[in-house]
């Protein structure tokens, strides 16, 4: 591990990633773009896991990494379901612009 790298560096990186992902999710109108933003948020969380795992928890070094792997699997599943929903929206509305889904309002 390179010297000088501290936990805060990773946290800042993670924060930057999270903010980028959030911005992407909030600002994109394209459904696939929103899914990409969610991937960024998830990966920001993964970095946090691994960083805290590495710097934080005494002898138990692999807990965070295992969680990170779970999150990756979850992200894959989420991408599948999200894409399937997007496909369904496209079939019904001939667009993947999420503003079109306002017809689903209560």
């Amino acid at each position, binding site marked *: 591990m390179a010297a000088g790298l501290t936990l805060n560096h990773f946290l800042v990186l993670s924060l930057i990633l999270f903010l980028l992902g959030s911005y992407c*999710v*909030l600002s994109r109108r394209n459904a696939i773009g*929103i899914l990409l933003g969610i991937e960024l948020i998830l990966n920001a969380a993964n970095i946090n896991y691994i960083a805290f795992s590495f710097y934080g928890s005494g002898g138990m070094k692999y807990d965070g990494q295992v969680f990170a792997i779970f999150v990756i699997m979850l992200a894959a599943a989420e991408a599948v379901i999200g894409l399937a929903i997007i496909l369904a929206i496209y079939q019904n509305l001939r667009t993947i612009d*999420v503003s079109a*889904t*306002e017809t689903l*309002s209560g």
Partner: protein
Amino acid sequence: MDNPQPVEFVRWIVLLPLIGAAINFLFGATIQKSFGRRAVSIVGCGAVIASFVLGLRAFFQMLAAPPDHRFMLDDLWRWFDIGGLKLDVAFWLDPLSIVMVLIVIGVGGSIHIYSTGYMHEDPSYWRFFAWLNLFTFAMLTLVLGDNLWLMFVGWEGVGLCSFALIGFWYSEHNNTSAGNKAFIYNRVGDWAFVVALYSLFAALGAVGHPTLVIREVAHYTPMLVGRPGYAGMSVITFVTLMMFLGATGKSAQIPLFVWLPDAMAGPTPVSALIHAATMVTAGVYMVARLNFLFSLAPATMLVVAAVGAITALFAATIGVTQNDIKRVLAYSTISQLGYMFVGVGVGAYAAGIFHLMTHAFFKACLFLGAGSVIHAMGGEQDMRNMGGLRHKLPITFWTFMAATLAICGIPPFAGFMSKDEIIWDAFEHGHPWIWLVLWLGAGITAFYMFRQVYLTFFGEFRGTHEQEHHLHESPVSMSSVLTVLGVLSLAGGAVMLPKFIAHFAPLEDFLDPVFDSPQTLAMAAHGTQRGLEGYFAVLSLALVAAGWLFADLTYRSSKLSAERMSEFAAGLPYRLSFGKYYVDEAYDVAVVRPYMMATRAAAWFDLHIIDGLVNLAAVITVFGSWLSGLFDNYVVDGLVNLAANSTLAAGGRLRRLQTGSINGYLYGLLAAVMVILLLQAVLRT
């Protein structure tokens, strides 16, 4: 008396008619359809004849025993045992009851045989014989019952059977209402009898001997002397008066006699059975049976004798003007029963029973003769449409004549022996007024009986041609019975001759052990006049002859006109008599109408007040449930609907939050996260 002979066969005297009745009631219709009427009559008559044979056996067995031991007891089973009252179903035969048994089954049985001819065309032949047998059974229970309750069972039984037989042809309203009338008047008497039994039982219980067994009652009765009863009378007077009121119901005396003339609605053999052998003799028998009790109550005895005498004259005067052949006989029955009550009322019990016996013979003969006439006339009962029948119905005529001579008291016929005995006894025991009344009654009896004979059998035939063509003597089953009864009317009096002719009175000697209580003997010995009997008999005969002559002049030789006579008396006595002194109407006004009004008032009360209350309750319930329904609809359902409606309304408002804009959701999410973080930061500091 302490050791009665136990005999097993006595029960069959009573039970055989019951068995006959049961067979005919249960299977009579089938028997009649499959085997014919003959089979039904074999069952009905056979039971009674077998019973009569047993009665004769008991009679001869009794004759063979010494006079002190002429008692038989057949104890069947313990009936009930309540409080101190222990009663058995047991039959008690003594000289009095055996005489009654022979009269009841003998005369009753001959009426059975007569009925096989008289009722031959009736479709309900079996029913008739079933009821006749049951009637005989009830009367035998009354006569033979060893205690007063069993006697009362028979007492009620004859009332029931008379009701059914009087209303036998029930399809006509007159007949059924006559049956009802008989039953209801009897109920009044029965009520009095029950009251008497309870009072007697209570009084005997008060002296430590609660019992209703007749011979025990006889033993303990003297202990009751001087004990206070009810209504200011001594207990014995009260009990005997109530019993006598019961007897007036059964035996058709004033005041409860009006049912008997209406009882003519039944078939003629029934009239004969009721009048001669069974029902009406019950009261006389009861007084004679309880002689030890009545003899202790001189006041009651006077009432009995006075009522008997008044009834005898009263009914005789009604008989004078009646036109219905059976109705005349009905009033003569009431009159003759009055004589019997005088007999037992003055203490001459044997004379009363003797007259009961001879009356059974000649009254059965008269009624069956009348039945034979009615049969020949095709149902005609009005004597004004008869006449000259003596050539067409010789047997009926001669037997009817014999019975008429008997009832009028012409020697040597049976009625002379018995009736004159009673008339004389009344005088002998110091009741000259009663003697006078009876003496007048005897003359009137002669008049109306010969009036009947002349109207029916003498003169020209006054009916229609069709009836004249149809006239015929009755079949053998009827005429043979008439002959037997006619002979008995002639010779039946020979068992007790008047003392001025000869001291020959086997009946009285035979009955003596029954009437041997000290008080009865004292009563019988209470006489002032002796040795005048012969002269009094001549006096009676003279008046009877006058009555006969009067009837002869009026109705046969027509030297006197009946119409002229009724006009001569200004019509009033005639109309009184013809209208039966309007006793029925008086009862109608005094009892029936108020009763009907009371029932109508009760019905009105029931309809308007009771039903009104019920309806009010119903209305209240309906109103209450309407209120409850309102509460349910508006309050309970309202709460439920409120919950539903508020949920609906809340949903309607809240769904606007769901815009469908994903970006909107995300901004909301972010905002919420930031608020949480902010709050956390604020709270942490």
